[in-house]
């Protein structure tokens, strides 16, 4: 649809508030030959139990239903893998369901668990996600990922997903980036930032101390995208526990309010019809009237440059949590940086910057933990985990990892979970000598965006400390 009814624009009204109680994750890596998927899932669960000082048995006593995010059955070569995981976690005969929405699988899994608790079906629910992308060589992995494009109309063209993003990168670069070398460098800065933050994260698969030149000189994958512009292929698991208010405060003294919403758009970018830009609370109806004048060719929305699914997810989530301006109202975000270009596109879709001006979020220094130009805290730090470029993209686990990372900042426990020498050792990784504490001081609210395909599914999960709720929430 390209016009919306009043019913479709309703801000979701949940029957009761839902809280994030705890979360945990495994090590992430390109290949983990020494562990089965079940072992990684148990690693994630054990970390979640330990985080709130509970034994696994104690934590399991609260769980009433389970939501399992695993995107690609063909990667794992195991249909109904949810039943294997559920059994190995010792959670039979509780109800469980598998959820798969491509790259947004992790976010969608939380969305399902959230609704289960909000509706009263369960007082406590487990959302667990995993992916095993090491069962095939990289070129076959690329073919599998490209199978998430249209099998008749797109996949036969190269069997390479990066290509389907590169056409968006090309369009965005020419229209909004005005083909400037400076814009290409800004894209590269995102990779430098995220690879760099990954160095402080023991879970992260691809920590790198690199420069813009390194990104620009890395092998071309699909012009203008280069290898260091692209997300990782990963193995690993992550989970969160959601509960209603009463149960959450029984389990821990510091649960966080959680709101999750979802949007969608066509699998093929080809099918996206020209339409009016739906507005977020911090935008005005007039502000995009001259978009095509300021950026010739930029007046076709969403075209190849916007993600309507992300915009819709943000619209619902902002209404639910009372967010007016994400840059003012949030303290940090984890975005789905599948590619440096899609990261910039998303800044605009979710209203961190107006359409056409995404680059300024990076160029102002706002997206950093510490603004490199002022030395002051960044206004809205993004992807301190390292994101999909630096930490991992174990598809079903990604959206859940992002939520855990945001939560640890609001809990003020980011350093505890990332500095621990024992964890670095257990993951067989060397903690860098210049390890830096990336805790966002005084973080009260944050958001994670989980994104599939070329924008087919997007979820937004907002976390709010209960003492710092916003007025005007839905």
């Amino acid at each position, binding site marked *: 649809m390209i016009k919306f009814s009043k019913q479709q624009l309703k801000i979701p009204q949940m029957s009761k508030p839902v809280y994030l109680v705890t979360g945990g994750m495994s090590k992430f890596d390109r290949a983990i030959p020494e562990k089965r998927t079940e072992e990684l899932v148990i690693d994630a669960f054990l970390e979640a139990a330990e985080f709130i000082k509970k034994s696994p048995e104690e934590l399991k006593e609260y769980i009433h239903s389970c939501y399992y995010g695993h995107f690609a059955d063909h990667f794992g070569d195991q249909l109904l893998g949810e039943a294997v995981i559920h059994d190995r976690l010792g959670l039979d005969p509780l109800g469980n369901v598998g959820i798969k929405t491509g790259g947004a699988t992790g976010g969608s899994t939380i969305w399902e668990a959230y609704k289960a608790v909000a509706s009263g079906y369960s007082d406590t629910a487990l959302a667990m996600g995993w992916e095993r992308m090491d069962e095939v060589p990289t070129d076959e992995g690329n073919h599998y990922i490209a199978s998430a494009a249209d099998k008749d109309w797109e996949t036969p063209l190269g069997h390479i997903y990066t290509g389907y993003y*590169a056409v968006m990168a090309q369009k965005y670069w020419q229209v909004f980036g005005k083909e400037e070398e400076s814009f290409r460098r800004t894209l590269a800065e995102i990779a430098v930032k995220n690879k760099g933050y990954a160095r402080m994260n023991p879970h992260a698969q691809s920590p790198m101390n690199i420069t813009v030149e390194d990104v620009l000189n890395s092998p071309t994958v699909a012009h203008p995208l280069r290898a260091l512009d692209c997300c990782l292929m990963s193995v690993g698991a992550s989970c969160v526990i959601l509960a209603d208010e009463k149960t959450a405060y029984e389990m821990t003294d510091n649960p966080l309010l959680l709101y999750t919403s979802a949007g969608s758009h066509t699998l093929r970018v080809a099918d996206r019809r020209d339409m009016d830009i739906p507005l977020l609370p911090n935008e005005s109806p007039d502000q995009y009237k001259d978009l095509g004048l300021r950026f010739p060719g930029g007046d076709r929305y969403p075209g190849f440059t916007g993600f309507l699914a992300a915009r819709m997810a943000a619209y619902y989530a902002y209404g639910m949590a009372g967010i007016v301006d994400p840059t003012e109202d949030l303290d940090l975000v984890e975005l789905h940086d599948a590619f440096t270009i899609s990261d910039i596109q998303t800044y605009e879709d979710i209203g961190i910057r107006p359409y056409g001006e995404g680059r300024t979020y990076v160029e102002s220094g706002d997206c950093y933990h510490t603004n490199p130009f002022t030395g002051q805290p960044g206004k809205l730090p993004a992807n301190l985990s390292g994101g999909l470029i630096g930490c991992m993209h174990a598809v079903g686990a990604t959206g859940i990892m992002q939520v855990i990372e945001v939560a640890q900042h609001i809990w003020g426990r980011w350093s505890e979970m990332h500095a621990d020498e024992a964890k670095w050792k257990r993951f067989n990784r060397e903690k860098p000598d210049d390890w830096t504490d990336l805790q966002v001081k005084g973080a009260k609210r944050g958001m994670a965006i989980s994104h599939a395909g070329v924008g087919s599914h997007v979820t937004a999960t907002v976390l709010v400390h209960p003492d710092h709720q916003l007025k005007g929430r839905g």
Partner: protein
Amino acid sequence: MSTQNRGTVKVENGRYRVSGNFHYAFPNDPIRDENGKLLGITNPADMTHIHAYGGEAPFFENLSNAKLLGTKCANPKCETYGSVYIPYRIHCPDCLMRNEEVDLTDLARKGASVHTFMITERTGAFNTLEKPIRFVNVEFEGVSTILMGYLSVGEPSIGMKVVPIFQTKNPTFTIMDLSWVPAGTSADELPEGFSL
């Protein structure tokens, strides 16, 4: 282990009739570390799927006849009545009525241009296109969608006028039977098997 007599399929009386082999079994191999410790096994698999084009079949059939078919909503009561679609949509996304087929070949020859593009040397497994691949996303005057394809001659740029070419000799009956070349390209510049 050979993969001879690969499977083929016909439909008779509305049912699939298959002949030949649709899968080939290969033995597993152990995966060990440098100390000889067993870590896993390889699981070879070679399978052929049977895929129905359904209502999109006319599109794929007609590429080999040098025709580019799209569809349009023919329901006057629909809010988006008259909208033209390529990729070929069987049903209107708004009213869900069955769309009417429209021949877009002439429109594509006169009014198609590159909306965006990309060039790649890297492909996934099973790619059969010659590298580097030049993707072009083609927009048409009066059409509400943008079609993905590949350019067979020259270098792409945004706004460039292009015309379709079709694999009329030895067609594959896939989207790869459709390619694009800059407007004004002569027939002798086309890849083997393609015609304007």
